[in-house]
């Protein structure tokens, strides 16, 4: 799609879709430049008062140790958005790669992969993630791997059904008759026609991953200190709940604005296509 095509697509979105697009773009920008525009160092104790309210010095108040909530939010957003983006990319590349392998590979390989994924998909994702975290721990790298492994089976299932459908079309038959290799069939003939339908799935999976990562961090099982994503920020300030501290509300609302925004955008974009 050309740049002008994208602008047009954004213009015809319904209001909810535009709101979603605005929220998602906002968080992408924050993830990119957040740490640069943070007024204080995220670890610095800058306020005498803990759980202070909003002020001109501290827009979102201070946290349970007197650190600046805005600065911690700007840095935490990079972890939430960045880790989720990396995890969803890993999950989709792995899932779709395996799906294409299953579609063009020998019959037994397809059976093996499909049965394995059917088994994994029968484990609820949060339960699966908890078992993996218990077994392997949750360093930055492991956490990203764990979350993406959790969402590989779902992507595999959708990508495989797309690939199997394409595999039966004439143009793939022609390519096969032409003597093209399996790699060519998968990557040149089939993959380009799967990308668009896969985008909606990838978007939804991104939402699930953001929720799973923040949920794990909220439970204290996700990102470990000194790193903190938005879920960790909610967790560490839970003691401020009794005083209605901004420090707990702001990061929780931040996560919601990202996930709700992404959900609205995906819904509007996919409905537009169907109409």
């Amino acid at each position, binding site marked *: 799609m050309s740049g002008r095509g994208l602008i047009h697509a954004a213009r015809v979105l319904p209001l*909810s879709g535009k709101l979603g697009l605005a929220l998602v773009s906002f968080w992408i920008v924050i993830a990119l430049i957040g740490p640069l525009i943070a007024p204080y160092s995220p670890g610095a104790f800058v306020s005498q008062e803990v759980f202070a309210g909003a002020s001109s010095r501290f827009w979102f108040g201070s946290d349970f140790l007197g650190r600046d909530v805005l600065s911690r939010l700007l840095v935490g957003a990079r972890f939430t958005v960045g880790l989720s983006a990396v995890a969803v990319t890993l999950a989709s590349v792995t899932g779709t790669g395996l799906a294409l392998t299953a579609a063009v590979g020998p019959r037994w390989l397809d059976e093996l992969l499909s049965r394995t994924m059917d088994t994994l998909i029968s484990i609820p994702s949060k339960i699966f993630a*908890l078992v993996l975290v*218990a077994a*392997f721990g949750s360093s930055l790298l492991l956490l990203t791997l764990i979350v993406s492994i959790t969402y590989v089976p779902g992507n595999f299932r959708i990508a495989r059904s797309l690939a199997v459908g394409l595999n039966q079309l004439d143009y793939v038959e022609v390519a096969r008759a032409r003597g093209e290799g399996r790699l060519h069939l998968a990557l040149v003939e089939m993959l380009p026609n799967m990308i668009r339908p896969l985008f909606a799935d990838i978007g939804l999976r991104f939402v699930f991953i953001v929720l799973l990562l923040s*949920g794990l961090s*909220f439970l204290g099982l996700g990102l470990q200190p000194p790193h903190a994503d938005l879920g960790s920020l909610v967790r560490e300030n839970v003691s401020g709940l009794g*005083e209605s501290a901004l420090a*707990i509300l702001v990061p929780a609302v931040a996560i919601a604005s990202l996930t709700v925004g992404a959900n609205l955008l995906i819904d509007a974009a996919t409905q537009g296509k169907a109409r």
Partner: protein
Amino acid sequence: MSAVATTSRWGGPARLIVKRIGLAFVTLLLVSAVIFTISGLLPGDAAQEVLGQSATPAQVAALRHEMGLDQPGPVRYFRWLGGIVTGNPGQSMVANKPVADIISERLPNTLTLAALTTFVAVPFAFLIGISSAVARGRKLDRWLNVLTLSMVALPEFLVATIAVLIFAVQLLWLPSIALVPEDPTPLQFVRVYAMPVIVLGVGVIAQLGRMIRAAIIAELDRPYVEMARLKGVLPTRLIFRHVLPNAIGPIVNAMALSLSYLFGGAIIVETIFSYPGLASLMVNAVTSRDMPLLQACAMIFCAAYLLLVLIADTVAILANPRLRHG
């Protein structure tokens, strides 16, 4: 579904359902292998972990032997699986009590929470689903669509935080910790469960409401609805007498599937409200790396999930006339 159903009429679906049940058992068996393999891959040694760093190698070796850790993997797996099947999934390493005892204490609490949430969420889901299906494409439908889309994407801890701020901190109506007293009065019961049920319900209502809308809309496009409209059936009667009975298959299917969402939600909700259920138990097991307890909890959640999917499949088979008569 008439009373004169003969064996030949039910042969098709019965065989299909038996096949599904068999498939579910095979899947559960494979799932158990996956869970055991992952949680058995511990980088540390469970015996070492229990005894701490100061233990002598001899002590560790003795405990390893006692725990059966010196046996080869497949032997341990089948011993563990046998334990699960016979209701004795081992000894909790941290609590030093049989896992079965701890779980039987906690499981009823989670089931109560799930049942209450279902009971509260289903009417709201029907209200949302029916209203938006009837107003399809109009303003109300579009607003409800945005509302449910947002509710699905809200993190449970945000809903919980807001609920606590409103009901516990500002209004002082409800306790922020869900400890059920012994022999609760009805009022105490409601006060304890109100917030966990609301928070869990948000996601279920939204998800189920969307699926009910889809199921009703699929029926509204059928010719018999057009016919009923033409002969002057009132809209309410059309929905309740004509459409809903026909859509009940997909709706029950949707209910079973959206209930599986409860488990994921319960993990956060039980933890936030310090509710003594199975999900918070599992989180504790992860934190304390109590593997026998963790494995047993994971198996219960997976079995419950597979059971719900099985129910959903069975209802779908029974509700599909082509399969029913097939």
